[in-house]
Structure formats: C-alpha cells, structure tokens
C-alpha cells in the first residue's frame, strides 16, 4: 500500500515538479502514470524509493513512513521496491548476469539461489544468450531488459517502471508487458510511467494522469487520453 499526502517537490534549482499530490495505491494494483514530458512523472516515482525527498507532505509505503525513515534503513526500503530506471542505471563494469545478480548479492543471498534465480529472470526477459555481455555491448532495448530483470529478480512487493518500453520494438514491448502482468497476477504492485498510448489503451488498468505537478485524472480502467 502506497499513500501520498499533500506532496510538494521543489528542486534545488527552483523548479517545482509536484504541486500538491494526493494518491493511494493498494497492494497488487497495476497503475499507469501518464502525462506530458516534464509533468513530474519521474519525480513522483523517485519519491517512492527515496531517490528524492519531498519538500513537504508525507509518504507511507508498506507501513513505512518515509519521513521518519532512518538513513541506514533506506536500503531495506529499496530492496522492497524493484525500480526500472528511465536511463537504465546499469553498472558498466558488470556483465548482464552480474548486473542482475547484484540486486541479490546486496541481500547476501546464497550463490546457488542467485544463479538459479538470475538465469530464470534472464530467460523471462529473453536475454539468456546475452548473460556475458557488458552494457556497452548491448542495444538500448537489451539494456532496458537487463534493468527490468534486475528490478524483478528479488521478488519485490512493488515494481516501479519509468518508461520501461521506451526503447523497445512493439513485439518486445508486448513481451515485457506480459511479464508485468504475470508478476502483477502474483500480487506485485506495478507502477509504470509511460508515453505509450497503445499499451495503455489495450491493456486496461488504472490510469493516473499528471500535468504540471498535479494529478488531473485518476480512472479505474482509463484511457491514455493524449494524442500520441
């Protein structure tokens, strides 16, 4: 369960990205975040795993009050949330396999389980044959899929995706969406910022539209609502 109350966020440079956001997302929901570029979607998402802190307002994630969360407890929060970053954020000196395994290594998982689980996830995103490749040897779409694999590898309760299909061809995009639906059906909350009208209008889910830092629309089974 994610609860945001009266969230304002002004960056150090004076840009106000969020302007009083109130939202509640229950465990197991599938939510699209839509809106024009610069509307504040990424900012909204960043607050959840504490890459950014709100200027004011409160955030509660799985009963953790982020306002009172101690710095040293932040890693625990982040391990409960799998994040697919808009810019991937892969570790450049690690192979595909090692990048995905890293998310399990930080939790001191047993190597045997790590191996099994990583290969499983790589298979799921169709990257088993690229396990030994390094990020700079992968296409944009492949890097994105590594990022997806890393986000879901440790069975997080919440998966947050910032334009996870931005660099993918339609076929791969639908494949990734199937993966999301699959893990969503097992109870994982999915929050996905996207510019893909096709996906939002085809796989109907809750849609939250953000414009100028405000939620302007929140529909149970919504449309994309913008001309692509």
């Amino acid at each position, binding site marked *: 369960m994610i609860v945001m109350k009266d969230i304002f966020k002004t960056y150090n440079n004076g840009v106000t990205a969020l302007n009083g956001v109130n939202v509640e997302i229950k465990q197991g929901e599938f939510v699209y975040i839509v809106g024009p570029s610069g509307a504040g979607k990424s900012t909204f998402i960043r607050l959840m*795993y504490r*890459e950014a802190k709100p200027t004011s307002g409160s955030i509660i994630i799985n009963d953790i009050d982020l306002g009172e969360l101690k710095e*040293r407890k*932040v*890693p*625990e929060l*982040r*391990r409960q949330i799998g*994040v697919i*970053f808009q810019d991937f*954020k*892969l*570790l*450049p*000196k690690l192979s595909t396999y090692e990048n995905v395994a*890293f*998310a399990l*290594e*930080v*939790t*001191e998982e*047993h*190597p045997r389980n790590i191996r099994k689980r990583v290969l499983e996830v790589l298979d799921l995103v169709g990257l088993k044959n690229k396990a030994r490749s390094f990020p700079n040897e992968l296409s944009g779409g492949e890097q994105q899929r590594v990022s997806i694999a*890393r986000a879901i590898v440790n069975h997080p309760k919440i998966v947050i995706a910032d334009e996870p299909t931005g660099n993918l061809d339609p076929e791969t995009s639908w494949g990734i969406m199937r993966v999301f639906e699959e893990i969503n059906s097992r109870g994982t909350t999915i929050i996905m910022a996207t510019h893909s009208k096709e996906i939002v209008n085809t796989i109907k889910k809750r849609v939250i539209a953000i414009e100028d830092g405000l939620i302007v629309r929140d529909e149970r089974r919504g449309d994309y609502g913008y001309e692509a």
Partner: protein
Amino acid sequence: MITVMKLRTINRHLREGVKNVFRNGWMSVASIGAVTVTLILVGAFLTLIFNLNQMAENVEQDVEINTLIDLTVNKEDILELGDQIKAIDGVDSVLFSSKDDELQKLITSMGEQGKSWGLFEQDNPLNHVYIVRAKDPNQTMAIAEKIEAMDHVEEVNYGKDVVERLFEFNKYARIIGLVLIGGLVFTAIFLISNTIKLTIMARSREIGIMKLVGATNGFIRWPFFIEGMLLGILGSILPVTAIMAGYYYLITNVSQHITLPFVKLLPFNPFAWQLSLAIVGVGALIGIWGSVMSVRKFLKV
C-alpha cells in the same frame, strides 16, 4: 545493529578491494612507496628507542658505587669504613674487593690486551674498593655523596654521567623521531586517501546506482576499506624484510664487537618479531585510516 557478514560477501569485498589496487596502477605504487618509506623509518626509530631504553635500564639497575679506599689506610680503618657505609640509609649491599681482585677484574675485562697488566701483579697500583649498591637506584647519588664525605675515602665513582647522558639522548631522540614519524605517517595517509578517492570518484555514479539498488553503505565501503588495508600491508613488506635482515646482521655481526658492559642489543627473538608485527599493524592502520577518510564523504547518496 551488527549483522554477521557471510563468508561469500567477505570474499566479494576482498576481490573488489584487490581489483581496485590494480585498477589504480601507479597511484597504488606511489601510496605503497610512501608507506614503505614511512615504515622503514618507523622501524629504524623504534629499534633505536627500544634498545636505548633497554640499555638505560641496564645501566640504571646496575649502578654500583665504587668507593676507592685511601692507599695508606690500615685494616681496622677499612673495616670501620665498611660498617659506616652499611649504616647509611638505603644501602642494599656492601662488598669488599681487594686491590688484587680489582686487578684481576681489570685483566679479564681487557681480554688480550689485559695480559700485559699481569706485570703489575707484583706492584699493584690499584686501591682496595668497597662496591656499594643502593636498594633503590634513584638513591645512588645521595648515598654516593655521603660516602664521599667519609674519612679514608679517596674517590667515589658511579655511572652517573653515562646514565644521565643516555636518558637525555633518549629523550631528544624520541621527540625528533616522533615529529619525523608523525609527518611521514600523515603524508602516507594523505597519499592513500587520495588514491582511494581516485577509485571512488571514477566510480561515484556506480556507487549511486549500487545504493539505489539496495546496497548498504557498509557493502559499498568494505572494498575500499580492504583496498586501503592492502596498500598499507603491501607497503610493510619491504620494511619488515629490511628490519628482520638488518637486525639479524646487527645481532650476529656487530654486537660481538661491542664489549661495553651495558651495550647489549635486545635479542632477535622476540624483539624483531614483535617489531615486524607492529610495523605491519601500523601499515594496515595507515591504509585503513586513509580509506575511511576518503570514503566518508562519498556515501551520502
């Protein structure tokens, strides 16, 4: 909260730490060099200080007052003088040593050359002597003064000058050495912390990513900690070798030729081993300190 780190995690950190050392190439070499120079000086200085200290103690413990008795004095006077000395407060023992005994001592202490002194056996020019020991070495001087004031005493000798000079020298050596070593240790720490800063800066984006993926500060810090420790320990290899070899040489070759009574070097075992251990420890500490200093600022993601 202390969590016990699992062996495989330790393994990972070790591997990463070693990798960093190689990745930084010449900067690592420079840091190791700085530690090496520092530790060689630390080692030499500690060797000197500990041996001087030991010698000073030997001398102090061994201070005897040689009371030279007037050549003209008769037996009764000698005995009376002995009683008087015994009566002084703080005197531990009084030993009479006749002039023949004294000559014998002189001859043995001179070794080969001493044989020529054998000529004096017929016409011994030495004095009878009372050898006096104080219960407490610190009282030696006071006792010596009292004895000197007595009748039939020609002269009083004790190792005052030697002791005082040794302690004085020791004091200055210690101060100069500490300043020197302080400066060097500081330089070495600075170099190591810069080397590690280099690793960190090159990897600050990576560190940020690691944290976003759920790595704790500890998880990120360990490899740098190990990198620093490794630089320190690598820097102590040469100094330890030099000290072991140097001290062994000193003990086996040099100390044989020194016949001064108080100048005895500390035995190789355990001194050289203890010193080596201390040097490795100081090296590791310098490295760890350097790494801790540089990592701290970078973890606030």
